[in-house]
């Protein structure tokens, strides 16, 4: 029985909002109810209790077959699944046989479901025999994983969302929660409204939207989290605010850690100055931390994506251990993840330095237990290549075949241009994706159409360890298949059919849940054993549950940790070395999310309304820097770093620290000419986690003043100009989604270039004003339908964006003059037909003249010129005179 048939069996279709699933976006993991037409937050889901953010609310607008990858392709040719799977299995098998298992790699994603992840991990580590499987979670969470493992002996987030509502002090550090995790932020907002005494501290070099909620914003210099939290530890010690009993009973390594922390001294004035904040603000924060037993510290990418991201995480956890605030109601450190299933991936072991179920590759006992459970013939014995290393190995030829699933490393890895070059040169690049065009897909030899959200079925784990079902409610487009199915088929064709007998995602989840029993043998908290005997029906009916299943939603409240000694470990965190800002690259560039976009926009980029907030890639700079570097607000800035460059718009933001800039991470070559922030970011990694330092790129900025600006509307790809950025104008157009491009350029766009660019145009409407450089063009096909609309000028030409978008849907009768105008003709009152064509005088005008007393043809002519030239309308004028006067 096919997957689809089973779904139909268990999930009745077309019942009102009958499908309970979770949002495909951030790590909050909100529940959604939908019937495919309308969508609401799931009031029963513990993460959101019915709330949804703008991205989640508009997710249905991103569905549809447009730009979907529908068929398997090998070397550019559409092939059958059998051919494609044989090809993947054959090529991987050949390379493994010739060069050994470490010559192949998988690069997977927090967008995969737990079942997909589990199968991929089992195939690579257990059967191919290499640990070369890493995930894009390396880019967002791996420092937190290291911090958790070092402190707790296991990658466990101790708290849950409810703690944010129970806390008296919520610290948000390295997190623009308002934009990146909107529902978590809304829960804090609601809690603070209910309990105004609750305090919120935001620690961020930028004044972000999250600061609206803050009682205190500590705008520390970038990279100062360790000194800040080391200072906190010292301050707690100085002020007798430590929980010595907890430290003694449940932790180890405190003294060494405190000594390291104290090394920077306790001159709060000097420390505040070093961090770039006032002493009052600094000590206020320390006071509040000391005073509030119920304190939650939320940390996210601003902490993780640094060269010392692991230490930054541990510095935070140290302060919580020193005050006994871990896993307690309203008191915990709280790493929140970026992706919907980053946590699920970490659980199954989808990182190159994990084995499976929170166990380690280099631990012989762990290794033996997992090998036994899987009956794995070749279980990897050493850690694999982490994301950045992996693509360096592709570049060097060490890795000869890479299979990329549901992620876009050509845009998301540091030194992204190098990644592209590496993939272009690689022997075999397989990409599984649900979209047809993307910067990584462009490098693929083999493309495999995967199911997307709303089609696929399986489990995800959110930031608070809550395991939820994603359920399908729309049919698979074209030949698209579930990732677990694709991997399973390849595993079978590589000769591992016995170990990969999966018929349904339920089979996989049950096996994975059973494997967590092995984790339990080694004292791990990860425990899904209660689901190991789940029936298919129970799997279908799964309700969101925290792991450990049937337990407290919190971990470690009892002070018993996952380390061999059962004690939590303090980790000494050295302050990072002071870095000189060079003249060549004087600005520190930070990158991150904006409110309405997600990752590389493959989904959010399909919904026009998600661009209403921020429509173009930009660099936000402080007004002082805009002036200092002679930039123009709203103008263009070229950013260059040691490894790359970008061209984006300038946004003025007093929330930036002078000397810093912020760029969104979302824009790819599919959405703008040159706005990939990660092309700028050098590959500098945290030594423990391998996570790149995305938040701290030295760059130079320079003004670019294009000779012309323009608008382009078309479903075609843009012509070659220096700057373009696009926005979809209508998500539901069938005939190819029309995009609105903002253009700018220096070089003239010649007539010949335009004709070469759009050879299918049968007619070009044109308006030329060469003296001012103002040009407009509308291209029509042979049936008169609009194919493209272009207007350029020294300043941005005026047009009515919404009206123009509608023109693309109009079947006929396109009013040419209005089209070129880019706005509807407001014809004014209807004056009837033209009577005098020489002077274009219309009937109502003539009648008006007659009513005012004109009694002859000559008098009409005096009144309105009608009939005073060729006279051919005079008979009609006589007729009008008679009818009006009779």
């Amino acid at each position: 029985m096919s997957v689809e048939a089973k779904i139909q069996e268990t999930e009745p279709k077309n019942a009102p909002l009958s499908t309970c699933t979770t949002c495909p976006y951030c790590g909050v993991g909100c529940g959604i109810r939908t019937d495919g037409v309308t969508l609401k937050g799931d009031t029963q889901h513990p993460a959101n209790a019915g709330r949804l953010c703008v991205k989640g609310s508009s997710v249905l607008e991103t569905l549809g077959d447009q730009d979907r990858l529908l068929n398997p392709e090998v070397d550019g040719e559409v092939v059958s699944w059998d051919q494609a799977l044989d090809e993947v299995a054959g090529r991987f098998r050949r390379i493994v046989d010739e060069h050994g298992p470490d010559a192949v790699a998988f690069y997977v994603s927090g967008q995969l479901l737990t079942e997909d992840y589990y199968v991929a991990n089992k195939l690579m580590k257990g059967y191919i025999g290499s640990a070369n499987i890493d995930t894009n979670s390396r880019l967002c969470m791996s420092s937190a994983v290291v911090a958790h493992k070092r402190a707790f002996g296991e990658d466990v987030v101790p708290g849950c969302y409810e703690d944010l509502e129970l806390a008296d002090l919520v610290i948000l550090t390295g997190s623009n929660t308002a934009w990146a995790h909107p529902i978590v932020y809304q829960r804090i907002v609601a809690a603070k409204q209910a309990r105004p005494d609750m305090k919120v501290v935001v620690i961020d070099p930028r004044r972000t939207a999250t600061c609206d909620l803050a009682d205190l914003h500590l705008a520390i210099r970038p990279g100062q989290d360790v000194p800040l939290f080391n200072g906190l530890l010292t301050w707690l010690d100085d002020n007798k605010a430590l929980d010595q009993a907890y430290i003694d009973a449940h932790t180890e390594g405190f003294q060494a850690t405190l000594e390291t922390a104290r090394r920077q001294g306790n001159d709060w004035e000097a420390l505040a100055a070093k961090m770039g904040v006032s002493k009052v603000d600094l000590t206020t924060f320390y006071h509040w931390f000391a005073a509030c037993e119920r304190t939650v510290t939320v940390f996210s990418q601003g902490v993780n994506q640094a060269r010392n991201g692991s230490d930054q995480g541990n510095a935070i956890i140290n302060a919580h251990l020193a005050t006994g605030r871990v896993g307690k109601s309203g008191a915990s450190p709280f790493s929140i993840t970026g992706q919907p299933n980053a946590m699920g991936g970490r659980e199954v072991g989808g990182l190159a330095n994990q084995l499976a179920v929170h166990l380690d590759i280099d631990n012989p006992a762990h290794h033996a237990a997992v090998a036994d459970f899987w009956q794995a013939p070749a279980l990897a014995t050493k850690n694999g290549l982490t994301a950045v290393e992996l693509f360096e190995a592709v570049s060097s030829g060490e890795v000869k075949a890479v299979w990329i699933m549901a992620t876009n490393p050509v845009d998301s890895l540091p030194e992204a241009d190098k990644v592209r070059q590496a993939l272009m040169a690689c022997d075999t690049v397989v990409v599984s994706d649900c979209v047809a065009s993307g910067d990584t897909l462009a490098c693929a030899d083999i493309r495999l159409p995967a199911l997307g959200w709303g089609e696929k079925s399986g489990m995800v784990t959110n930031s608070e360890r809550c395991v939820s079902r994603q359920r399908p409610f729309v049919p698979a487009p074209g030949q698209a298949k579930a990732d677990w199915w694709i991997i399973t088929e390849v595993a079978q064709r590589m000769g591992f059919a016995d170990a990969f007998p999966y018929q349904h995602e339920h089979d996989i989840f049950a096996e994975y849940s059973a494997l967590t029993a092995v984790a339990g043998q080694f004292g791990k908290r990860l425990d899904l054993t209660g689901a190991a005997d789940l029936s298919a029906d129970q799997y279908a009916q799964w309700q969101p549950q925290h792991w450990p299943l049937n337990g407290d939603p919190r971990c470690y409240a009892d002070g018993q940790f996952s380390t061999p000694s059962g004690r939590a470990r303090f980790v000494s965190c050295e302050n990072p070395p002071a870095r000189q800002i060079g003249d060549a690259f004087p600005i520190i560039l930070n990158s991150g999310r904006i409110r309405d976009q997600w990752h590389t926009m493959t989904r959010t980029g399909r919904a026009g309304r998600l661009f209403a907030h921020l429509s173009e890639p930009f660099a936000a700079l402080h007004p002082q820097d805009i002036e200092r570097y002679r930039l123009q607000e709203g103008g263009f800035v070229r950013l260059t770093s040691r490894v790359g460059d970008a061209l984006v718009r300038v946004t003025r933001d007093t929330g930036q620290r002078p000397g810093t800039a912020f760029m969104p991470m979302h824009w790819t070559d599919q959405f703008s000419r040159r706005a990939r922030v990660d092309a700028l970011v050098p590959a500098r990694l945290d030594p423990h986690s391998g996570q790149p330092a995305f938040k701290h790129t030295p760059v130079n900025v320079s003004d670019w003043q294009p000779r012309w600006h323009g608008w382009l509307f078309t479903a075609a790809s843009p012509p070659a100009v220096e700057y373009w950025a696009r926005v979809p104008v209508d998500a539901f157009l069938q005939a190819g989604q029309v995009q609105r491009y903002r253009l700018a350029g220096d070089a003239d766009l010649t007539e010949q270039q335009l004709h070469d660019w759009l050879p299918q145009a049968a007619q070009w409407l044109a308006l030329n004003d060469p003296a001012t450089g103002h040009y407009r063009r509308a291209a029509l096909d042979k049936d008169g339908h609009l194919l493209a609309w272009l207007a350029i000028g020294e300043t941005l030409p005026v047009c009515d964006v919404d009206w123009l978008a509608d023109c693309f849907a109009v079947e006929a009768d396109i009013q040419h003059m209005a089209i070129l105008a880019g706005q509807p003709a407001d014809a004014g009152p209807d004056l009837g037909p033209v009577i005098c064509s020489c002077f274009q005088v219309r009937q109502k005008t003539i009648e008006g003249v007659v009513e005012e007393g004109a009694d002859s043809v000559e008098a009409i002519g005096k009144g309105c010129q009608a009939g005073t030239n060729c006279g051919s309308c005079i008979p009609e004028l006589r007729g009008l005179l008679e009818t009006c006067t009779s």
Partner: protein
Amino acid sequence: MKRLVVVGNGMAACRLLEELTRLAPDLYQITVVGDEPFAGYNRVMLSPLLGGGTDEKTITTHPHQWYRDRNIRLITGTPVVAIHRRRRQVETAAGHLLDYDRLLLATGAAPRQLPVEGVTLDGVVSFRDLYDVRRLLSLPAARVVVVGGGFLGLEAADALVKQGHDVTLVHSRGHLLNQQLDESAGHRLQQDLEARGLKFVMQARTQSIEDNGQGAVAAVHLADGQRLPADYVVQAVGIVPRAELAASAGLTVNQGVRVDDTLQTFDPAIYAIGECVEHRERTFGLVAPLYEQASVCASHLAELGHRRYLYADSATRLKISGIDLVSCGDFLGDRGKGTEQGETLQLNLPGSYRRVQIRDNRVVGMVLYGDVSDAPFFEKLWKEKTDIGALREALLLGEVFCKRPGDSDEHSEEVAA
């Protein structure tokens, strides 16, 4: 009552009679002498008549009854052959001797003759009056060569195509209507007319017309050696003021009958209007200035004379085969000197073309082809020398889009909300 004799019964004369009989119905005993055997008709409508789009009755603007109603004596079908100024008397070919106190010359213009051998052959015709049209309408399906790509030639050629003839138009310049259109519009017109079956030979000078041996047309020979077989030749290479009568009466004649700003000739009893006159070294071929002359002249004849005729440049409005054309001013931006100055704005749409020439932020000329709905708007800007700086982006799109120059697009410049 004073006696007024009007020589000519064309559009200028008719317009004058209308004005005069309205201003001073009882001042004159009026006699009109027309050499055509018709009452007053609208010459502009001859093309539609030839093309089958109207009939003679419809284009007759002033039937015989109209003259009778105003006690005007109308003598048709005979030309005036002499003016006896001392006796204040005119003489017609039919022998009428008509005394006058005031004489008005409105003798119009004649088609310019091709200065080539064979122009007098049978089958070489003009396109000027109702008689010509009747003759052209009576032709059996034939090969016709029209010489001249100006307004009249095009109208004749287009009408003849509609009548089913095989028509080739020969024009001496690179594009049609070169007095009124720039190259783009001229080429468009050619394409549009070609699509309707008209053939063109451009940049072609007519060398001679070949005799078929029986005194009739056999072919047209061009300077480059081409031979165009033809049964008929329509010559449409411009008009010449008909001023022989005035000249023979001793009035001052240059290109046309010289008149002053009151439309008076050098003889205070004699006025002249229309295509036969020369006013301030200018002759006339379009209807608008003729009407203005008629109006000014009528006021003087009515003895209410205080107005002066001053030529006002106005837009030329033409309609060829249903295609509207308007042109005015220095539309090439070369001030007639061949080297372009200023700035050109152009709009190209299917079936429609606009060119507006700008100098110092002012419209100095234009060509409109096809959609001429905005001609009055552009003409006003041109005449009033309006500063078009603020309108420039939408100018060519017309008045409707110029009314809202301040509209801006909410998405236009904001990157960040």
